[in-house]
């Protein structure tokens, strides 16, 4: 008997057991399994074996041999889950490896980033702002002080000049003026030194800014690694040299300084 005929006959026999709900369920399961088998069969060598098993299962159902059918169903279920599990297993493995690689490569640093390093960097930059402001304020205060002093000393000098040219002591020149000149003279080197020392922020802030720049470069590298490990395809384009490229792009639109601004102003009739 040819397979077609055999199946036709078996299909007719199937009518007898149609009422059985569990069989209907099985039928559905078999259809699923069959699909799965075909799908897997393309890849797996045991395709023919599966087909044979499916036929046997169908036969058992048709003949009302529930016991045999159940065995096949269990077999298929196991087969299905095995594949499913092996797929899930593969994915899990891959994920595990990725995470492992990720941890080995970047994790120690990355773990610290949000918790420590970034807030630290923010604090550091905040410190830079404070430090520079403090230095600027100290410097400006001293400059203001001496600009004020200079105004007064100029007046005193004028008076002294009068003393020499007119050979008389001007009424409003007295010993207090001399004391003032002495004071200012004494303060000047001290204040100049303080202005000088106030510039020490440059060194300290420079170092901190360098560290923050390094941190940003590290973050960039690590983000690229994350993208690579987790398979996000990066657009292939010439790799920018860190921050330098964006700076170059910016500079194209930048005027080099006041003279170029003046050129633009001139074009507009200024």
């Amino acid at each position, binding site marked *: 008997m040819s397979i077609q005929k055999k199946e036709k006959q078996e299909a007719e026999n199937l009518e007898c057991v149609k009422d059985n709900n569990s069989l209907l369920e099985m039928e559905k399961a078999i259809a699923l399994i069959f699909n799965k088998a075909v799908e897997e069969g393309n890849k797996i060598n045991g395709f023919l074996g599966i087909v044979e098993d499916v036929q046997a299962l169908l036969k058992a159902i048709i003949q009302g041999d529930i016991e045999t059918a159940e065995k096949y169903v269990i077999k298929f279920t196991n087969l299905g889950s095995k594949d499913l599990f092996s797929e899930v297993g593969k994915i899990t493995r891959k994920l595990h490896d990725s995470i492992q690689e990720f941890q080995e490569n970047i994790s120690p640093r990355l773990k610290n980033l949000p918790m420590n390093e970034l807030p630290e960097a923010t604090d550091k930059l905040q410190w830079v702002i404070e430090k520079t402001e403090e230095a600027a304020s100290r410097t*400006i205060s001293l400059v203001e002080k001496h*600009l004020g002093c200079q105004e007064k000393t100029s007046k005193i000098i004028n008076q002294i000049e009068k003393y020499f040219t007119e050979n008389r002591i001007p009424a409003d020149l007295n010993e207090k003026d001399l004391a003032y000149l002495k004071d200012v003279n004494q303060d000047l080197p001290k204040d100049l030194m303080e202005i000088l020392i106030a510039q020490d922020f440059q060194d300290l802030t420079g170092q901190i800014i360098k560290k923050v720049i390094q941190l940003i470069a590290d973050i960039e590298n690590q983000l690229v690694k994350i993208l690579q490990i987790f398979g996000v395809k990066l657009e292939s384009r010439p790799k920018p040299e860190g921050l330098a490229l964006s700076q170059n792009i910016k500079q194209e*639109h930048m005027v080099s*300084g*006041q003279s*170029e601004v003046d050129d633009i102003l001139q074009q507009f009739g200024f």
Partner: protein
Amino acid sequence: MDQKMKILVVDDFTTMRRIVKNLLKQLGYENIDEAEDGQQALSKLKNDKYHFIISDWNMPNMTGIELLQQVRSDLELKALPFLMVTAEAEKERVIEAIKTGVNNYIIKPFTAEILKDKMEKIFEKMAGKS
């Protein structure tokens, strides 16, 4: 130019305001007031008589260019000389400021010499116009 003129210096950094203020004092201007952003500047401008504005561009609340727009669209204030002093060095920015009606443009960092030169240019131009 009138040394008694009242100048409003607008910058969100105290340091910068102090520097500009001192430079102006060196140039002989004594009557100087400060504002820390465009908004504060605008309310000062509306409540008091000023003769000159020196403003930064980047500031919170209201930027220098927004302040300039407000000044130019205000009937009372629109003729006020406005000098932009900013680190904004893009050509587009300079042109934007010019189109909005700035009287001159200085890039930070700048020298006392540049400030003097630009202020004089503004006065010359204004004298020529009137």
